[in-house]
């Protein structure tokens, strides 16, 4: 179903339908993540991808035309770019540890966190305790990233005062 949705997103030229299909894709992805025992990530995917993302895409559509424009250049350049990206991603994937291997780092260090979480932090959800306590610096960085993204969007989109120039 994920593959069918992806092909549909690429083939359909009506952008409104594409926006809805993107939301469906996010919900399917959330289901996959739930099957992989990652409810935290699934909740995020459902809320951000299917909820906010779809609303923002539709909001952007409101500003533009709803039909995809004809491509202005040939098929060769996008093909090279997409093929190159796919090759780079496959090369990256080949370096990751095999799925389900008991010797993976997650199995070497995971039980340590699971054992330490409740006595040290009193938090049964290990994802929360790792996120907010053991990896507090990373989460601080993520919060700053979200803040920076919001500031960047505001700087780009917020209507500047009538007088052009200056600080805007």
């Amino acid at each position: 179903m994920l593959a069918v949705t992806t092909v549909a997103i690429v083939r359909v030229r009506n952008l409104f339908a594409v926006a809805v299909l993107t939301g469906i894709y996010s919900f399917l992805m959330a289901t996959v993540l739930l099957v992989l025992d990652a409810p935290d990530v699934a909740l995020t995917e459902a809320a951000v991808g299917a909820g906010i993302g779809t609303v923002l895409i539709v909001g952007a559509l409101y500003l533009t035309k709803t039909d995809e424009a004809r491509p202005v250049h040939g098929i060769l350049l996008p093909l090279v770019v997409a093929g190159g990206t796919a090759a780079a991603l496959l090369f990256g994937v080949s370096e990751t540890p095999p799925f389900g291997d008991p010797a993976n780092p997650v199995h070497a260090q995971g039980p340590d966190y699971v054992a330490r979480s409740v006595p040290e932090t009193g938090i049964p959800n290990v994802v929360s305790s790792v996120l907010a306590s053991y990896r507090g610096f990373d989460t601080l960085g993520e919060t700053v990233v979200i803040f920076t993204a919001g500031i960047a969007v505001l700087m780009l989109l917020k209507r500047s005062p009538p007088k052009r120039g200056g600080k805007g």
Partner: protein
Amino acid sequence: MRLDLILRVATKLILPYMLLFALYVQFHGDYGAGGGFQAGVIAGAAIILYALVFGLAAARRIVPAALVETMMPLGVFIYAAVGVAGWLTGGDYLEYNHLARDPVHGQEWGVFLVELGVFVTVSATMVAIFYAFAGRGRAR
């Protein structure tokens, strides 16, 4: 805007539960799935839904843009301040063990405050981005 009675009533019915669910995800994140980020997104989505159905002006009356733009840096500030508090109470930066009378209690306080900071920033950012898009649409 007169023909969307069903949408308006349904939104009014759904909104309190969305906000309640956001708070549940926020404060129950220690025990179940979720945390500050997810709760912030759900709360932001509730505001966005209100803005979609009742119009941008009504949403801006409840959640003014100035408030949203204050909350964005405020969340980061709360997070960083918790780190500094860990410093001042005798630990490392972002070490929560000394925030309360015993380490476990301190950890719970630290995680709670940090998640609160994430919640504030994330929800405000979602609403701010939506306001920026929607406000642009009205300007045309």
